[in-house]
């Protein structure tokens, strides 16, 4: 009997897993400067979405009212209730504490008493009580951030001017998870995380307290990167100078860098900003100091490979209407001629003949009784 289907045997199936990486470069001009530029107040740019609750703001790659805009990441800030910064008189004090606790319970988890643990830096076991949080959108992060690929460059110029502009980026530090590919941690409830180390990336001298230019061992740990969660946690001390438990070189920073547009114009590091500025203003401050971000994402592809084995006696005739002329096979002149077909498509079917998947060849393949072909069809999930 003529047949149009061929059964797949269990030996014709194979499963495999592939990791696919994409490079995600996010230029700082998208984050702070492209839309609105110097003429628009911080936080009012059309690609920055703020919320009435004021607990975070979202950065889009395009004015967010456009349907083609994609959310890139969010920015928020918080501190622990036990932080010396915490004070009931602070602007949005309880919300800043709530955000810290929310992120901590999600990313760090609970201790044996059920209390929320605080963010700690594994190399030094130092507690991070004041943090910036940057949750990246799944659209870009996909399944996870590739370990060892993350870079965040921040402008740390101590200029007192705080507007859009290049002056903030004359002196820059770069945060990387350089140890991520070989030295990451697994005690987070959300998966693996690595440490972000800072180093001077632009400027004439070492900008960090105790840093020796070119020596990775002197780079301070300033944050954590949660790979599967796609969240960067930055210690707020990165914007404080060394004599006040910060990471910036005391000799260079008589004043802390300004990280908000409100409050004292000369000595406003994170510690002071946290009291007077709202969370949105502090998010604006961090965003305005981001020079660029780049990382590679990871997509985990689980694949099933179907080996469609076409034997020499299989599929040598066609039901294509042009195959026949008056019921006679067009490619044959006499019965003894070899039948020949050309196929472009492989259809994968269920037991009840429903077409579940289809694969197209880039060019027709000839099939006749003198050849055998094995087609390797891979379906990714």
């Amino acid at each position, binding site marked *: *009997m*003529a*047949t*149009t*289907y*061929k*059964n*797949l045997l269990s030996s014709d199936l194979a499963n495999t897993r592939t990791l696919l990486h994409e490079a995600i470069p996010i230029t700082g001009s998208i984050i702070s400067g492209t839309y609105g530029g110097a003429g628009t107040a911080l936080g009012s740019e059309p690609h920055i979405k703020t919320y009435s609750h004021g607990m975070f703001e979202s950065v889009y790659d395009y004015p967010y009212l456009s349907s083609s805009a994609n959310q890139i990441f969010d920015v928020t800030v918080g501190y622990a209730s036990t932080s010396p910064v915490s004070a009931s008189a602070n602007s949005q004090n309880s919300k800043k504490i709530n955000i810290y606790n929310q992120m901590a319970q999600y990313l760090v988890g609970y201790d044996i008493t059920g209390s929320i643990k605080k963010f700690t830096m594994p190399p030094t076991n130092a507690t991070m009580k004041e943090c910036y949080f940057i949750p990246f959108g799944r659209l870009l992060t996909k399944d996870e951030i590739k370990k060892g690929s993350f870079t965040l460059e921040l402008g740390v110029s101590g200029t007192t001017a705080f507007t859009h502009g290049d002056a903030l980026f004359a002196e820059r530090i770069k945060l990387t998870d350089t140890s991520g590919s070989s030295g990451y941690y697994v005690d987070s409830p959300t998966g693996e995380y690595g440490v972000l180390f800072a180093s001077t990336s632009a400027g004439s001298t070492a900008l960090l307290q105790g840093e020796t230019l070119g020596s990775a061992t002197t780079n301070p740990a300033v944050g954590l990167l949660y790979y599967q969660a796609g969240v960067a946690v930055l210690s707020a001390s990165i914007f404080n100078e060394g004599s006040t438990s910060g990471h910036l070189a005391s000799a260079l920073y008589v004043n802390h860098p300004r990280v908000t547009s409100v409050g004292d114009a000369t000595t406003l590091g994170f510690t002071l900003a946290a009291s007077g500025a709202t969370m949105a203003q502090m998010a604006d401050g961090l965003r305005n100091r981001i020079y660029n971000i780049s990382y590679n994402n990871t997509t985990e592809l689980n694949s099933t490979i*179907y080996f469609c084995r076409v034997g020499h*006696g299989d*599929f*040598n*005739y*066609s*039901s*294509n*209407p*042009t*195959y*026949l002329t*008056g*019921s*006679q*096979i*067009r*490619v*044959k002149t*006499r*019965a*003894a001629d070899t*039948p*020949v*077909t*050309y*196929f*472009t*498509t*492989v*259809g*994968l*079917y*269920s*037991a*009840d*003949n*429903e*077409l*579940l*998947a*289809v*694969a*197209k060849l*880039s*060019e*027709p*393949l000839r*099939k006749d009784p003198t050849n055998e072909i094995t*087609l390797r*069809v891979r*379906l990714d999930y």
Partner: protein
Amino acid sequence: MGFLDNSGDIILDAVLTDTGRMRLAKGDGSFKIVKFALGDDEINYELYNKNHSSGSAYYDLEILQTPVLEAFANNTASMKSKLMSIPRNNILFLPVLKLNEAFDTSTAKHSDTGTFLIAVNTATETELEKDSSGNILAGVLMGESPGRSANRIRVDQGLDTDQISPARALDPLLVETQYMIQMDNRLGNVVSKTDAFRASVSFVDDDSVATYYLSRGTDPEYVTSITDTSDSALQAIQGPRGTKLNFKIQTSLELNTSDYLFNTIGTTENFDSVSGATTSHKVITSTIRVIGVNTGYRIDIPVKFAKKV
């Protein structure tokens, strides 16, 4: 869908169809790939040049240069013509499916429209069933009460060639024993020519296309062998004959009771009515696809579902 890049190595562009995704989403185990088939939808075998002056290596030069489209996700848009496996290489003729309009007037198409006209309710049946002289009109199927008329659709299978006598038996390898009928499930369903059997739907896909399987032996009211081996004008197949498929269409309750689908996907046409006058009808134009499950050959039968305005 664009063409696939065919400048380098052969690549395979594979996607799940919409039905595949639907079954995957169901999570009930219905997504299980157990077989494969090969298709040649893009190939035009008329380009096979057996008389090429440079020899047999050049016969298929144009065919092999055929550009191939990317894979369609729509399950009904791909694999329209399949390759066949037949355990013999010395076959010169292959069977086809052919609409038999010659058997009698009850199997002919509607002469004015060139389709089968399906009246969806009693009023329309009365309006279109007969001409002004009281003669039953060919090609008008009774959608609400299929038994009211003998009109039906008949598809014959066999070698449609005058080079082989119909007195010769069709090679058993080439006899089609199972047919697949696909039609829009919103419009109607398949019933037997005696109206005694409503065919069971095998499955309805995500595009509301219902598939019926009808086999010789298990569905004798639909599929039977063609026993006429004479050179008869009542037969559509000139050469050796295999099986025939007879069926009618019963319209859906939705078409019968509502104008929604007519207003959404239909149009309006005028037909000659029993009174001799031309009357206006809401019409949905569709096709019913009949496929030989074993031989893969298929035909699309044009139909119009009509409702008196």
